[in-house]
């Protein structure tokens, strides 16, 4: 009944993107952590988590995202979240995820932010 999460790690010059397809629930925990470890091992500062093809996220899935956020901070890497619809952007802000990871509507907006000169 639950749509199993599929992930693809995509390498860009300035960031590593994890594309998610399916549901982000408790079933996604192991796959998300494995994909994050793969992306993190590339060593770039920025990792983009792309939710554009995700239709259902629950609190267990959000807990996994928070766990990955903590891992990223521990490795001096920064997670950027893109592609959430309006409803899930509201939920992510509601539970405080947005305090630790910037949310962008699109991948292009996240890449533009990365390209900005550091102030």
């Amino acid at each position, binding site marked *: 009944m639950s749509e199993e999460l599929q992930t693809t790690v995509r390498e860009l010059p300035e960031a590593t993107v994890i594309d998610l397809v399916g549901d982000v629930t408790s079933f996604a925990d192991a796959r998300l952590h494995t994909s994050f470890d793969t992306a993190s091992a590339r060593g770039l500062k920025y990792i983009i988590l792309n939710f554009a093809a995700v239709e*259902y996220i629950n609190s267990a899935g959000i*807990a996994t995202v928070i766990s990955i956020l903590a891992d990223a901070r521990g490795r001096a890497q920064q997670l950027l979240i893109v592609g959430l619809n309006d*409803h899930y952007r509201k*939920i992510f802000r*509601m539970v405080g995820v947005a305090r630790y990871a910037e949310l962008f509507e699109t991948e292009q907006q996240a890449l533009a932010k990365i390209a900005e000169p550091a102030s």
Partner: protein
Amino acid sequence: MSSEKRIIHLHIPSELGYEKVAMGAARSVAQAMGFSNDRILDLQTAIAEACTNAMEHGNRLNAAQRVEVVLTVEENALAVDVNDKGKNPQFGEPEIREHDKHRGMGMYIIKQLVDEVQWSAKPQGGQVRMVIYLEPKEEAGA
């Protein structure tokens, strides 16, 4: 859909993923009642959290035990009861333990998304009652 009170009963297996059946039914009913899409999404997320909580913590993921979802159509609101078979002697809002913090997050999300919510424990199991109004309460009273 007339304003006459109508009641829909669903019985879903305590197997993660089946909460989507309740989400789909709630969407159909809420659409027919004239809820906005934003309110329907809020309702669906709240129902999903209540159902997964009932499956995991009430029925201990025993697929043979059903979670009962009751949608009650009222004149200006939709009430949703989610009932499990958990034998929890504690009344009121469940205590959150360290190992399942996401459960606490789920309950917090429910509180934020619906207009009224009440947790109760009965001899036959736990219950969450949620009510969402066609017009959010603060706007209706403005």
